[in-house]
């Protein structure tokens, strides 16, 4: 049967492609040889060079020696938790938000731009005034109730469904307590069906004056469930996740890993994925909306020792094989900066709209 032959062939190709990855269970000899040839501090590849610089620097250190790190144990086992606190000056200006919302008649069902225009011409300036309108009275009542006392999710959905304004959607965040924000980012060994090696979550105090990053690190692949458990202990129904591209990557990735471990992860907190708002703001102005591009062009941040995601598996593998924590250092640091600057991002983008 050709089909079988063909599939064998296909399988073979895949096998050989897979064996070209150093982190596959059986990397091919050529892959290992290539890795050796290009290795060491003399490598032409700046990323490999960087890895060896870190390995030199950290060769005698242990993860527990890192500042703020401690070994924790939860239901799912032991893992490493790294905590760091720093100052921040965070605030979201919520002035006029409610007033602005109330001016948007389109938030009411069955009111589109045309009807809104007509109503405004008739003198209905805001939703409050519609309480006197025979037809829209009840809708207005409901909408006001939602805006004034409804759960955040409902207000957001009201805005999302009835108004096309990304700005207004983000402005909804102004309603929230600062200490409910969970700025989150993960590092993984690939795009799907592979372990998460690091989950970082940053939280602020009520006043927005300090921000604490907590990172859970996979010291060994057996700890993944403990890492996820550690992260989930930060999340409850009142949390608001803030990520960059988390809606399509980080959150489903964590869900898949929970699914893999048959872990019941019912809690799905409200989520602001800043990439949507970044696209609305800068899509036409920047070559792309990657986080690093925006950092560079908009916020003028140039990060040293940035490791692209595609190199993280290689770095992690070196750590496992050599027992040298060096390669993890830039990953941890990078992740920490990411989650802390997500807070800055949220604030700046909030202001831009």
């Amino acid at each position, binding site marked *: 049967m*050709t089909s079988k032959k063909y599939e064998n062939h296909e399988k073979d190709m895949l096998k050989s492609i897979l064996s070209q990855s150093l982190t596959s269970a059986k990397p091919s000899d050529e892959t290992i040889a290539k890795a050796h040839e290009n290795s060491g501090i003399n490598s032409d590849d700046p990323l490999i060079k960087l890895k060896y610089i870190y390995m030199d620097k950290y060769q005698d250190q242990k993860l527990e020696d890192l500042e703020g790190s401690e070994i924790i144990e939860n239901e799912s086992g032991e893992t490493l938790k790294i905590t760091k606190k720093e100052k921040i000056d965070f605030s979201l200006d919520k002035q006029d938000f409610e007033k602005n919302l109330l001016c948007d008649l389109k938030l009411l069902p069955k009111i589109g731009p045309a009807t809104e225009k007509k109503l405004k011409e008739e003198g209905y300036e805001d939703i409050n005034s519609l309480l006197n309108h025979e037809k829209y009275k009840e809708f207005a009542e409901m909408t006001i109730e939602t805006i004034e006392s409804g759960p955040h999710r409902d207000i957001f959905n009201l805005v999302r469904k009835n108004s096309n304004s990304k700005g207004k959607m983000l402005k909804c965040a102004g309603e929230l307590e600062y200490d409910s924000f969970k700025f989150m980012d993960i590092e993984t060994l690939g795009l799907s069906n592979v372990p998460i090696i690091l989950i970082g979550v940053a939280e602020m105090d009520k006043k927005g004056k300090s921000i604490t990053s907590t990172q859970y690190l996979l010291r060994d692949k057996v700890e993944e469930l403990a890492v996820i458990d550690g992260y989930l202990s930060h999340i409850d129904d009142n949390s608001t996740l803030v990520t960059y591209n988390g809606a399509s990557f980080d959150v489903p990735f964590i869900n898949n890993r929970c699914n893999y471990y048959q872990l019941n992860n019912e809690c799905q907190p409200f989520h602001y994925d800043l990439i949507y708002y970044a696209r609305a703001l800068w899509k036409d102005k920047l070559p792309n909306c990657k986080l690093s591009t925006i950092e560079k062009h908009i916020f003028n941040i140039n990060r040293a020792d940035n490791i692209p995601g595609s190199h993280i598996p290689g770095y992690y593998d070196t750590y496992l094989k050599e027992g040298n924590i060096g390669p993890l250092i830039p990953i941890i640091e990078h992740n920490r900066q990411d989650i802390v600057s997500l807070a800055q991002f949220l604030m700046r983008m909030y202001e831009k709209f």
Partner: protein
Amino acid sequence: MDILAIDKFKNDIRFRHKIAHIETLKGNEAIYGNINNLNSKISNYLQNKEIKLYKHQTIAYNKIKNEKNIIITTPTASGKTLAFNLPIFENMLKNKSITAMYIYPAKALSNDQLKVLKDFEKDLDLTIKPATYDGDTPKNKKYGIRQNSRIILTNPYQIHHILSWHHQWKRFYSNLKYIVIDEAHTYKGVFGSNVAFLIRRLKRIAKFYGSNPQFILSSATLANPKELANKLVGENFHLIDKDTSPHGEKDFIFYNPFYKNVKKNTTTGNNNSNSNNNRNNKKINHIITNNKLEKNKDLQDKFIKDVIANNNNGDEGTKITDGLSIHQETEIIFLYLLLKDIQTLCFTVSRKLAELIAMWTKKDMKQYKRPLADKITAYRAGYLASERRNIEEGLKNREYLGVTCTNALELGINIGSLDAVIISGYPGTMISTWQQAGRAGREKQKSLVILLAFENQLDQYFMKNPEFFFDKPHENAIVDLNNDIISTSHILCAANEFPITKEEAEEIFDFKNNRLDNLVKNGELLKNKKEQYIYPYDDEASFKHSLDQLSNDSFKVIATEKNNINTIYRNPSEGKLLETIERRQVYKEAHEGAVLINKGETYIVDSVNLEAKYVNVYKEAVDYHTIVLKDVDIKIKSKIKRERIGDFTVNFGELEVSEDFHEYKKMNFSKSIGSFALDLPPLRFNTKGIWFTIPIEIKDTLEDEFEENNVFAGGLHGVEHALIGLFPLHVMCDQFDIGGLSTNYHQDTQEATIFIYDAYEGGIGICEKALEVFDQLVQSTKSLIDTCLCESGCPSCIYSPKCGNENKPLHKDVTSHILNYIESEVSVIERKNTLDNIHKSENYKHYDKNMKEEYVNNNEPTNNFLYEKKVKNNIKLDENHTNTNSIYNKNKSIHKNKATTNVENNTNNDYITENNLKNKVKNKNNVHNKLQEALKLFKEKNYTFAKDILINILDTDKDNSDAWYLLGAILNDQGDSKGAIKFLRKALIVDPANEKVHELISILKIENRI
């Protein structure tokens, strides 16, 4: 077509004498059934299409409705598909979310079925969106299929890889209600065993998402359909095997070109009446013959005369009559039928032959009836899809009259039914033969099937024993759930899908003891705090485990031009990848100097790189082939079962096989044109197999009777070949799936022994099944030898094409004598005696613990296959060691006599291996040695094996007090003091002075106050 033309062949004087048997299969009227409360949409559909349901379809419908797992084994074209599509679609009409998975062994089949399902969907006005999901599915379609399709058609290879992406299939798995496995008989051997584990993985995922699918299997007729279904799925099944669809009469003709080799032409009463009928038919035929037909007949006669005239007729001594090759003979019959306007499908054993026979027939047809030449074509895998569809359609509307093909057409592809089928060479299984034969036959007309026999054992067996073929199904499809390599592979894949727990591993995969923890030790799995075992690598486990092969130990065959060979030796990537083959196959067929055949082209193996696993070949047309010679050495590692069949004992257990491929020969047809040494390390593997011994008295008798050399060895060797040759009759496998060894003396049994083993690491269940059907196997083999007319052995009886010893020595008469002996022992009705009772009280199904551990320890992951010469030497030393007394010196308990073994090299009667030659020990103190062995095993607490040996001793020597004593001691150690006392008393009866016995009895009395 002239209806009566179909009967002409069997009466034609030019063919008649080669017909070994004609079985006329009676036509059947349809039996219809009724279904109550059928959904109106469905009953309207049936009415519109004028479909009346057959009874077996309604039975299947009801069983499925009652949520029973079923397996349907009615023949091709009996409406199996409709039988299960009806209830599935009906349930889908009612329940809007349920889904179903249809599994086919090949992609072509799922495409065919997709069309059927889409039509059904359209006719019922239902939204199911059936879709194939396999390697050909465009990437951009996949998401939509996962989200929306309610029926997925796929194959095991695809499932193997998509299972770990189950999170993308949440909707599908959560609602999975039916799993249909079509052509279930194709899931046997290594592939089938892999699929059985794959289904268990699939069920585990379905369970996680909250569904518990029902299974519907369809299969060709088998001896063990329920067992197969049960092993594949792990659940109980209801069998539906009674065909109630109508079909016309069919003549099934066994045609033997080697007819001169057959003792008697089986003519049954049934046949006589047939020929009477035929005579009548002939008369009618003459009456209705018109001019045109008359003209045709002339043409045909001219053609046949031409053929015969062109061939040498002075071949009285040779076996093939008329000097025709079997393939030319096939062509003549094919042409004969086509000239009679009989639409014929001709199955051949290879693609090349399909092409050749079509080409010859076209060419010859041009001389007789030119317009028909364009109605002849070959059809095979490798043709473009459009070409194939064109031929399929052409067969349906009779644009094609004659098609040659390989078994690509055997599985359910829809080409309608034809007038006649020629099967040139037994396709290897009766299932395939019946499936191919099923292509002929229309509802109302008579049809014809002609099976042409080749010279080998199986083909000739059927020619001489047609009743075996037409009797009940004999073939058992084997699925082995005990192969450690396969179960380990699937445990790793399953852990990659979800972390696995100890309970699951044991419950679902029968993965027991500390095997999971051993995988953790080897770094293949990790265990976390929640006792979950996880797959820690970031690749896909499924890619590392093929469903077709046991090991990953495969070699790449790289082809290039001859003058370029040095380049690819240095840099294999510059050559063309021809195929990948397993190590064992490299040793057998692709060693240095071998002629390797790939898609009909011959290649010469230039070199084999054992480290980098490359075989470098270049294309060259040569007129010779190569055969490899090997020495086999076997050690018994443990005995799992000991089966008494009548008075004959057959053992089943774990064997360590070492095959040393030391030489190859270049052969021009059957003449050797040179021998060449090979330098390959022996291939060593652990497997499972059966063995039995032939007592020394038989040897003595036979050596007295026949005065030649190597008489006994030749007989044993013949028995081994003939048994292996007929294995596939009872256990579905290829001859090449098993290996054998026969020896005048084997150190582990200390007797003349024949071994037959599964040629796969870990065993694949073939020999285990053979143990169950051993008596039938012996019967068939005996009848094969008895009916073969040759003088001193031929490929139809005791010659084996794959013999590693050049079919030497072989002795046909002695083979026959030994088989007679085995047969007479096997057919003795089981005697009731104490020994058998002892035997039955033991549970042989479980390995002894000690043995098991020993096995695991030996099974080091590294170098399992390569058995370096150095190691070999060590083993030899080891063996000598065990044959000396040093081990036993300390043991004074029983043996008051000196423990002496006479070790002497006996060079006379060895023929198998150099190793054996050295180990050949003629043991005069046989019983004594056995007793020592038993004692040693007893001391190692290896009771099962020790008991076996003791029973064996008592079999021949009932008055062995020490053996009775030791049995008592074993039972005592095992806590059965009553049984112990019983045996100790026997020991005392035999030898009242045995002090040891008195001692143990008094201890027992004190302990138990007996």
